[in-house]
Protein backbone atom coordinates (compact mmCIF):
# COMPACT_ATOMS: atom_id res chain seq x y z
CA UNK A 1 0.00 0.00 0.00
CA UNK A 2 1.24 3.45 -0.98
CA UNK A 3 0.33 6.36 1.29
CA UNK A 4 0.06 9.73 -0.46
CA UNK A 5 0.40 12.36 2.24
CA UNK A 6 -2.55 14.72 2.17
CA UNK A 7 -1.55 18.10 3.57
CA UNK A 8 -3.83 20.22 1.36
CA UNK A 9 -0.97 21.27 -0.79
CA UNK A 10 -1.21 20.31 -4.34
CA UNK A 11 -2.85 18.50 -7.14
CA UNK A 12 -2.98 14.88 -6.01
CA UNK A 13 -4.95 13.78 -9.05
CA UNK A 14 -1.99 13.16 -11.33
CA UNK A 15 -0.07 11.17 -8.71
CA UNK A 16 -3.20 9.08 -8.04
CA UNK A 17 -3.70 8.53 -11.76
CA UNK A 18 -0.09 7.45 -12.24
CA UNK A 19 -0.39 4.87 -9.46
CA UNK A 20 -3.70 3.66 -10.88
CA UNK A 21 -2.16 3.18 -14.33
CA UNK A 22 0.51 1.02 -12.68
CA UNK A 23 -2.10 -0.94 -10.75
CA UNK A 24 -0.68 0.10 -7.35
CA UNK A 25 -2.97 0.36 -4.34
CA UNK A 26 -2.87 3.70 -2.62
CA UNK A 27 -4.51 5.76 0.04
CA UNK A 28 -4.57 9.55 0.41
CA UNK A 29 -4.13 10.27 4.08
CA UNK A 30 -2.85 12.52 6.83
CA UNK A 31 -3.22 9.85 9.53
CA UNK A 32 0.03 8.97 11.24
CA UNK A 33 -0.75 5.27 11.83
CA UNK A 34 -1.68 4.76 8.16
CA UNK A 35 1.52 6.47 7.00
CA UNK A 36 3.64 4.40 9.41
CA UNK A 37 2.15 1.14 8.13
CA UNK A 38 2.46 2.00 4.42
CA UNK A 39 5.05 0.17 2.28
CA UNK A 40 5.74 3.35 0.33
CA UNK A 41 5.06 6.99 1.12
CA UNK A 42 4.75 9.82 -1.41
CA UNK A 43 4.99 13.48 -0.44
CA UNK A 44 3.64 15.52 -3.37
CA UNK A 45 3.44 19.30 -3.48
CA UNK A 46 2.96 22.30 -5.72
CA UNK A 47 2.95 26.02 -5.08
CA UNK A 48 5.37 27.63 -2.68
CA UNK A 49 7.73 25.82 -0.31
CA UNK A 50 6.85 28.28 2.46
CA UNK A 51 3.14 27.50 2.20
CA UNK A 52 3.80 23.77 1.82
CA UNK A 53 6.02 23.67 4.91
CA UNK A 54 3.45 25.62 6.90
CA UNK A 55 0.70 23.18 5.87
CA UNK A 56 2.89 20.20 6.72
CA UNK A 57 3.68 21.66 10.15
CA UNK A 58 -0.05 21.98 10.78
CA UNK A 59 -0.55 18.25 10.19
CA UNK A 60 2.02 17.51 12.90
CA UNK A 61 3.56 14.87 10.61
CA UNK A 62 7.13 16.23 10.35
CA UNK A 63 8.68 13.88 12.92
CA UNK A 64 6.67 10.96 11.56
CA UNK A 65 8.09 11.55 8.08
CA UNK A 66 11.65 11.92 9.38
CA UNK A 67 11.35 8.65 11.29
CA UNK A 68 10.04 6.51 8.40
CA UNK A 69 12.25 3.58 7.41
CA UNK A 70 10.45 2.49 4.25
CA UNK A 71 11.01 4.22 0.89
CA UNK A 72 9.65 7.78 0.80
CA UNK A 73 9.43 9.86 -2.39
CA UNK A 74 9.07 13.64 -2.40
CA UNK A 75 7.96 15.20 -5.68
CA UNK A 76 8.72 18.80 -6.71
CA UNK A 77 7.86 21.05 -3.74
CA UNK A 78 7.41 17.84 -1.71
CA UNK A 79 11.10 17.20 -2.32
CA UNK A 80 12.10 20.80 -1.66
CA UNK A 81 10.61 20.74 1.82
CA UNK A 82 12.61 17.57 2.54
CA UNK A 83 15.76 19.68 2.05
CA UNK A 84 17.45 21.78 4.73
CA UNK A 85 16.27 25.23 3.79
CA UNK A 86 14.50 27.09 0.98
CA UNK A 87 15.19 30.60 -0.19
CA UNK A 88 11.45 30.82 -0.93
CA UNK A 89 10.16 32.68 2.11
CA UNK A 90 13.42 31.88 3.96
CA UNK A 91 11.89 28.58 5.03
CA UNK A 92 13.41 26.05 7.43
CA UNK A 93 12.53 22.64 5.98
CA UNK A 94 12.65 19.02 7.15
CA UNK A 95 16.42 18.69 6.80
CA UNK A 96 16.42 15.16 5.41
CA UNK A 97 18.48 16.01 2.32
CA UNK A 98 21.65 17.99 2.82
CA UNK A 99 20.72 20.58 0.20
CA UNK A 100 19.59 24.17 0.07
CA UNK A 101 16.87 25.31 -2.32
CA UNK A 102 17.66 28.48 -4.29
CA UNK A 103 15.83 30.66 -6.81
CA UNK A 104 16.67 30.59 -10.52
CA UNK A 105 17.77 33.98 -11.79
CA UNK A 106 16.29 34.70 -15.23
CA UNK A 107 18.89 35.61 -17.86
CA UNK A 108 19.62 35.03 -21.53
CA UNK A 109 18.30 31.56 -22.42
CA UNK A 110 17.16 30.90 -18.84
CA UNK A 111 13.46 31.49 -18.38
CA UNK A 112 11.78 31.22 -15.03
CA UNK A 113 9.80 29.10 -14.27
CA UNK A 114 11.95 26.31 -15.67
CA UNK A 115 9.09 24.69 -17.53
CA UNK A 116 9.20 21.77 -19.90
CA UNK A 117 11.26 18.72 -20.74
CA UNK A 118 14.90 18.62 -19.74
CA UNK A 119 17.55 15.91 -19.44
CA UNK A 120 18.62 14.05 -16.33
CA UNK A 121 22.23 12.87 -16.20
CA UNK A 122 24.71 11.35 -13.74
CA UNK A 123 22.05 8.87 -12.62
CA UNK A 124 23.14 7.08 -9.48
CA UNK A 125 20.37 5.05 -7.92
CA UNK A 126 18.09 2.07 -8.39
CA UNK A 127 15.38 4.69 -8.78
CA UNK A 128 16.74 5.06 -12.32
CA UNK A 129 16.96 1.37 -13.20
CA UNK A 130 16.51 0.95 -16.99
CA UNK A 131 16.67 4.72 -17.52
CA UNK A 132 19.49 6.01 -19.69
CA UNK A 133 21.45 9.13 -18.77
CA UNK A 134 20.18 12.03 -20.88
CA UNK A 135 16.53 10.93 -20.69
CA UNK A 136 13.97 13.72 -20.76
CA UNK A 137 11.67 14.40 -17.79
CA UNK A 138 9.11 17.14 -17.15
CA UNK A 139 9.98 20.06 -14.89
CA UNK A 140 7.91 23.01 -13.61
CA UNK A 141 9.64 25.07 -10.92
CA UNK A 142 11.27 28.38 -10.08
CA UNK A 143 13.46 27.15 -7.20
CA UNK A 144 16.03 24.34 -7.39
CA UNK A 145 17.96 22.18 -4.93
CA UNK A 146 21.70 22.78 -5.13
CA UNK A 147 24.12 19.99 -5.86
CA UNK A 148 25.10 18.12 -2.69
CA UNK A 149 26.39 14.71 -1.59
CA UNK A 150 22.80 13.36 -1.79
CA UNK A 151 22.47 14.23 -5.50
CA UNK A 152 21.54 11.19 -7.62
CA UNK A 153 20.62 13.00 -10.86
CA UNK A 154 21.61 16.32 -12.35
CA UNK A 155 19.96 18.73 -14.80
CA UNK A 156 21.22 21.95 -16.33
CA UNK A 157 19.10 25.10 -16.54
CA UNK A 158 21.52 27.99 -16.57
CA UNK A 159 23.43 26.07 -13.92
CA UNK A 160 23.58 22.45 -12.86
CA UNK A 161 21.25 21.47 -10.02
CA UNK A 162 19.93 18.33 -8.32
CA UNK A 163 17.24 16.71 -10.43
CA UNK A 164 16.88 14.02 -7.79
CA UNK A 165 18.17 13.37 -4.26
CA UNK A 166 18.55 10.33 -2.04
CA UNK A 167 19.44 9.91 1.60
CA UNK A 168 19.06 6.40 3.04
CA UNK A 169 15.40 5.44 2.36
CA UNK A 170 14.40 8.97 1.31
CA UNK A 171 14.14 9.92 -2.36
CA UNK A 172 13.11 13.12 -4.04
CA UNK A 173 12.64 14.28 -7.62
CA UNK A 174 12.47 17.93 -8.59
CA UNK A 175 10.82 16.86 -11.86
CA UNK A 176 7.35 15.34 -12.08
CA UNK A 177 7.62 11.59 -12.79
CA UNK A 178 3.81 11.41 -12.92
CA UNK A 179 3.88 13.78 -15.91
CA UNK A 180 7.04 12.51 -17.60
CA UNK A 181 5.52 10.03 -20.04
CA UNK A 182 6.87 6.49 -20.16
CA UNK A 183 10.20 7.47 -18.55
CA UNK A 184 8.34 8.87 -15.55
CA UNK A 185 6.18 5.79 -15.32
CA UNK A 186 9.32 3.64 -15.21
CA UNK A 187 10.75 5.79 -12.39
CA UNK A 188 7.57 5.37 -10.32
CA UNK A 189 7.64 1.65 -11.05
CA UNK A 190 11.26 1.56 -9.85
CA UNK A 191 10.29 3.40 -6.67
CA UNK A 192 7.55 0.84 -5.99
CA UNK A 193 10.07 -1.97 -6.58
CA UNK A 194 12.82 -0.60 -4.28
Amino acid at each position, binding site marked *: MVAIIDYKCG*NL*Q*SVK*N*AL*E*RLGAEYVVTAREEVIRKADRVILPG*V*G*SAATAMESLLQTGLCDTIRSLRRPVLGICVGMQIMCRWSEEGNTECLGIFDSKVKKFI*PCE*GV*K*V*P*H*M*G*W*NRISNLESKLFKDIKGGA*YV*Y*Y*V*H*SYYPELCPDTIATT*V*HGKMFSGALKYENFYGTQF*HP*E*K*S*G*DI*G*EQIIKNFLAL
Partner: protein
Amino acid sequence: MVAKRIIPCLDVKEGRTVKGINFVGLQDVGDPVELGAYYSACGADELVYLDISATREGRGTFTELVRKISGRINIPFTVGGGISSLDDASRLLDAGADKISINSSAIANPSLIDAIAGKYGNQFVVVAIDAKLLPDSRWMATTHGGSKPTDKELFSWALEAQERGAGEILFTSMDHDGTRAGYPCETFARLSEVISIPVIASGGAGSAADIADVLSRGRADAALAASIFHYGEIGIRELKQELLAQGIEVRL
Protein backbone atom coordinates in the same frame (compact mmCIF):
# COMPACT_ATOMS: atom_id res chain seq x y z
CA MET B 1 18.96 22.83 -21.73
CA VAL B 2 15.20 22.72 -21.64
CA ALA B 3 13.83 21.31 -24.91
CA LYS B 4 11.54 23.30 -27.18
CA ARG B 5 8.00 21.95 -26.88
CA ILE B 6 5.57 20.89 -29.59
CA ILE B 7 1.95 21.16 -28.51
CA PRO B 8 -1.06 19.99 -30.53
CA CYS B 9 -4.26 21.87 -29.72
CA LEU B 10 -7.55 19.97 -29.77
CA ASP B 11 -10.86 21.79 -30.07
CA VAL B 12 -13.64 20.08 -28.16
CA LYS B 13 -17.34 20.71 -28.70
CA GLU B 14 -19.96 18.93 -26.57
CA GLY B 15 -17.32 16.36 -25.58
CA ARG B 16 -16.01 15.56 -29.07
CA THR B 17 -12.97 16.76 -31.00
CA VAL B 18 -14.11 18.72 -33.99
CA LYS B 19 -11.18 18.51 -36.39
CA GLY B 20 -9.01 15.73 -37.63
CA ILE B 21 -8.55 12.79 -39.91
CA ASN B 22 -8.24 9.17 -38.90
CA PHE B 23 -4.65 8.11 -38.43
CA VAL B 24 -3.46 4.55 -38.67
CA GLY B 25 -3.99 2.92 -35.29
CA LEU B 26 -6.46 5.51 -34.09
CA GLN B 27 -9.99 4.19 -33.73
CA ASP B 28 -12.01 7.33 -33.18
CA VAL B 29 -10.59 10.70 -34.11
CA GLY B 30 -13.61 12.35 -32.49
CA ASP B 31 -12.69 10.96 -29.08
CA PRO B 32 -10.51 13.59 -27.35
CA VAL B 33 -8.94 11.00 -25.05
CA GLU B 34 -7.98 8.68 -27.92
CA LEU B 35 -6.66 11.51 -30.06
CA GLY B 36 -4.66 12.93 -27.15
CA ALA B 37 -3.17 9.52 -26.36
CA TYR B 38 -2.28 9.14 -30.02
CA TYR B 39 -0.44 12.49 -30.10
CA SER B 40 1.28 11.66 -26.83
CA ALA B 41 2.52 8.38 -28.31
CA CYS B 42 3.75 10.32 -31.37
CA GLY B 43 5.94 12.53 -29.18
CA ALA B 44 3.78 15.53 -28.31
CA ASP B 45 5.29 17.32 -25.30
CA GLU B 46 2.03 18.66 -23.93
CA LEU B 47 -1.57 18.86 -25.07
CA VAL B 48 -4.04 21.74 -25.06
CA TYR B 49 -7.76 21.05 -24.99
CA LEU B 50 -9.95 24.01 -25.87
CA ASP B 51 -13.63 23.78 -24.99
CA ILE B 52 -15.66 25.53 -27.68
CA SER B 53 -19.03 24.25 -26.46
CA ALA B 54 -21.72 26.85 -26.56
CA THR B 55 -24.00 25.27 -23.98
CA ARG B 56 -24.03 24.62 -20.26
CA GLU B 57 -24.41 20.90 -20.88
CA GLY B 58 -21.38 20.99 -23.13
CA ARG B 59 -19.34 22.61 -20.35
CA GLY B 60 -20.37 19.93 -17.88
CA THR B 61 -19.35 17.25 -20.36
CA PHE B 62 -15.96 18.93 -20.66
CA THR B 63 -15.21 18.60 -16.93
CA GLU B 64 -16.01 14.88 -17.12
CA LEU B 65 -13.77 14.66 -20.15
CA VAL B 66 -10.87 16.34 -18.30
CA ARG B 67 -11.19 13.63 -15.67
CA LYS B 68 -10.89 10.92 -18.34
CA ILE B 69 -7.96 12.64 -20.03
CA SER B 70 -6.02 12.90 -16.77
CA GLY B 71 -6.64 9.22 -16.09
CA ARG B 72 -5.18 8.20 -19.42
CA ILE B 73 -2.55 10.75 -20.47
CA ASN B 74 0.85 10.79 -18.76
CA ILE B 75 2.11 14.11 -20.12
CA PRO B 76 0.97 17.58 -19.03
CA PHE B 77 -2.18 19.08 -20.48
CA THR B 78 -3.76 22.51 -20.44
CA VAL B 79 -7.47 23.24 -20.69
CA GLY B 80 -9.07 26.43 -21.85
CA GLY B 81 -12.35 27.90 -22.98
CA GLY B 82 -14.99 29.53 -20.84
CA ILE B 83 -12.93 29.83 -17.66
CA SER B 84 -14.05 33.03 -16.01
CA SER B 85 -13.79 32.46 -12.27
CA LEU B 86 -11.64 30.88 -9.59
CA ASP B 87 -14.39 28.26 -9.19
CA ASP B 88 -14.10 27.27 -12.86
CA ALA B 89 -10.35 26.87 -12.42
CA SER B 90 -10.75 24.85 -9.20
CA ARG B 91 -13.24 22.51 -10.86
CA LEU B 92 -10.79 21.79 -13.70
CA LEU B 93 -7.84 21.37 -11.33
CA ASP B 94 -9.85 18.88 -9.29
CA ALA B 95 -10.64 17.02 -12.50
CA GLY B 96 -6.89 16.70 -13.12
CA ALA B 97 -5.89 19.55 -15.45
CA ASP B 98 -2.24 20.60 -15.12
CA LYS B 99 -2.80 24.13 -16.35
CA ILE B 100 -5.66 26.35 -17.37
CA SER B 101 -5.59 28.94 -20.12
CA ILE B 102 -7.48 32.21 -19.80
CA ASN B 103 -7.90 34.90 -22.41
CA SER B 104 -10.85 37.31 -22.59
CA SER B 105 -11.79 36.72 -18.94
CA ALA B 106 -8.31 37.89 -17.91
CA ILE B 107 -8.70 41.02 -20.02
CA ALA B 108 -12.11 41.74 -18.50
CA ASN B 109 -10.86 40.99 -15.00
CA PRO B 110 -7.04 40.95 -14.70
CA SER B 111 -7.18 40.12 -10.98
CA LEU B 112 -8.45 36.67 -11.98
CA ILE B 113 -4.79 35.89 -12.80
CA ASP B 114 -3.73 36.86 -9.24
CA ALA B 115 -6.56 34.83 -7.74
CA ILE B 116 -5.85 31.60 -9.64
CA ALA B 117 -2.04 31.86 -9.46
CA GLY B 118 -2.23 32.81 -5.79
CA LYS B 119 -4.22 29.70 -4.98
CA TYR B 120 -2.67 27.11 -7.32
CA GLY B 121 0.72 28.52 -8.33
CA ASN B 122 2.06 30.35 -11.38
CA GLN B 123 2.66 27.09 -13.25
CA PHE B 124 -1.11 26.54 -13.38
CA VAL B 125 -1.93 29.75 -15.26
CA VAL B 126 -1.40 30.29 -18.97
CA VAL B 127 -2.53 33.68 -20.25
CA ALA B 128 -3.49 33.57 -23.92
CA ILE B 129 -3.30 36.78 -25.93
CA ASP B 130 -4.84 37.17 -29.40
CA ALA B 131 -3.31 40.33 -30.82
CA LYS B 132 -3.55 42.33 -34.03
CA LEU B 133 -1.12 44.80 -35.56
CA LEU B 134 -2.65 48.26 -35.92
CA PRO B 135 -1.71 50.71 -38.70
CA ASP B 136 0.20 52.74 -36.08
CA SER B 137 2.47 49.67 -35.52
CA ARG B 138 1.08 48.80 -32.11
CA TRP B 139 0.11 45.20 -31.34
CA MET B 140 -3.22 45.30 -29.51
CA ALA B 141 -4.99 42.43 -27.77
CA THR B 142 -8.39 41.44 -29.15
CA THR B 143 -11.17 39.14 -27.98
CA HIS B 144 -13.89 37.10 -29.68
CA GLY B 145 -11.65 35.61 -32.33
CA GLY B 146 -10.05 38.93 -33.19
CA SER B 147 -13.32 40.76 -33.79
CA LYS B 148 -13.38 42.91 -30.64
CA PRO B 149 -10.57 45.37 -29.95
CA THR B 150 -9.38 46.03 -26.39
CA ASP B 151 -7.23 48.72 -24.78
CA LYS B 152 -4.47 46.24 -23.89
CA GLU B 153 -1.19 46.59 -25.75
CA LEU B 154 0.50 43.22 -26.28
CA PHE B 155 3.85 43.78 -24.56
CA SER B 156 2.58 45.73 -21.57
CA TRP B 157 -0.33 43.32 -21.10
CA ALA B 158 2.03 40.30 -21.26
CA LEU B 159 4.27 41.96 -18.66
CA GLU B 160 1.29 42.75 -16.45
CA ALA B 161 0.08 39.15 -16.75
CA GLN B 162 3.54 37.92 -15.72
CA GLU B 163 3.60 40.26 -12.73
CA ARG B 164 0.15 39.12 -11.69
CA GLY B 165 1.33 35.52 -11.68
CA ALA B 166 0.98 33.99 -15.16
CA GLY B 167 3.41 31.10 -15.70
CA GLU B 168 3.37 31.25 -19.49
CA ILE B 169 2.10 33.47 -22.31
CA LEU B 170 0.40 31.93 -25.32
CA PHE B 171 0.51 34.52 -28.09
CA THR B 172 -1.47 34.26 -31.32
CA SER B 173 -1.19 36.86 -34.04
CA MET B 174 -4.68 37.23 -35.43
CA ASP B 175 -3.11 38.62 -38.60
CA HIS B 176 -1.28 35.34 -39.16
CA ASP B 177 -3.68 32.79 -37.65
CA GLY B 178 -5.08 30.53 -40.33
CA THR B 179 -2.86 31.97 -43.08
CA ARG B 180 -0.22 29.21 -42.95
CA ALA B 181 2.30 31.85 -43.93
CA GLY B 182 4.45 31.63 -40.81
CA TYR B 183 4.73 33.60 -37.58
CA PRO B 184 5.71 37.24 -36.94
CA CYS B 185 9.10 36.20 -35.57
CA GLU B 186 10.39 39.69 -34.71
CA THR B 187 7.36 40.26 -32.53
CA PHE B 188 7.86 36.91 -30.79
CA ALA B 189 11.53 37.67 -30.20
CA ARG B 190 10.66 41.03 -28.69
CA LEU B 191 8.05 39.41 -26.46
CA SER B 192 10.74 37.06 -25.16
CA GLU B 193 12.88 40.07 -24.32
CA VAL B 194 10.10 41.89 -22.51
CA ILE B 195 8.99 38.98 -20.30
CA SER B 196 10.98 36.28 -18.51
CA ILE B 197 8.34 33.53 -18.46
CA PRO B 198 8.04 31.03 -21.35
CA VAL B 199 6.29 32.04 -24.57
CA ILE B 200 4.15 29.63 -26.59
CA ALA B 201 3.76 30.55 -30.27
CA SER B 202 0.45 29.88 -31.94
CA GLY B 203 -1.27 30.59 -35.23
CA GLY B 204 0.27 30.70 -38.66
CA ALA B 205 2.28 27.50 -39.02
CA GLY B 206 2.15 26.10 -42.52
CA SER B 207 5.32 24.03 -42.47
CA ALA B 208 8.09 22.61 -40.33
CA ALA B 209 10.26 25.52 -41.50
CA ASP B 210 7.80 28.02 -40.00
CA ILE B 211 7.92 26.26 -36.65
CA ALA B 212 11.73 26.06 -36.77
CA ASP B 213 11.78 29.78 -37.49
CA VAL B 214 9.63 30.82 -34.52
CA LEU B 215 11.55 28.54 -32.15
CA SER B 216 14.95 29.88 -33.25
CA ARG B 217 14.68 33.42 -34.64
CA GLY B 218 11.41 34.04 -32.77
CA ARG B 219 12.93 32.65 -29.54
CA ALA B 220 9.62 30.99 -28.59
CA ASP B 221 9.82 28.17 -26.05
CA ALA B 222 7.02 26.12 -27.55
CA ALA B 223 4.89 25.95 -30.68
CA LEU B 224 1.23 25.15 -30.60
CA ALA B 225 -0.61 24.06 -33.73
CA ALA B 226 -3.88 22.45 -34.68
CA SER B 227 -4.67 21.89 -38.36
CA ILE B 228 -1.23 20.82 -39.56
CA PHE B 229 -1.36 17.96 -37.06
CA HIS B 230 -5.04 17.12 -37.27
CA TYR B 231 -4.99 16.78 -41.03
CA GLY B 232 -1.79 14.80 -41.02
CA GLU B 233 0.21 17.33 -43.00
CA ILE B 234 3.13 17.05 -40.61
CA GLY B 235 3.64 14.18 -38.19
CA ILE B 236 4.91 15.24 -34.77
CA ARG B 237 7.82 12.84 -34.91
CA GLU B 238 8.94 13.94 -38.38
CA LEU B 239 8.57 17.58 -37.35
CA LYS B 240 10.82 16.98 -34.36
CA GLN B 241 13.39 15.17 -36.51
CA GLU B 242 13.41 18.14 -38.84
CA LEU B 243 13.87 20.56 -35.91
CA LEU B 244 16.66 18.43 -34.49
CA ALA B 245 18.40 18.42 -37.89
CA GLN B 246 18.33 22.22 -37.74
CA GLY B 247 20.03 22.20 -34.36
CA ILE B 248 16.91 22.92 -32.30
CA GLU B 249 16.76 20.88 -29.12
CA VAL B 250 13.61 18.78 -28.88
CA ARG B 251 12.65 15.64 -26.98
CA LEU B 252 12.65 12.63 -29.30
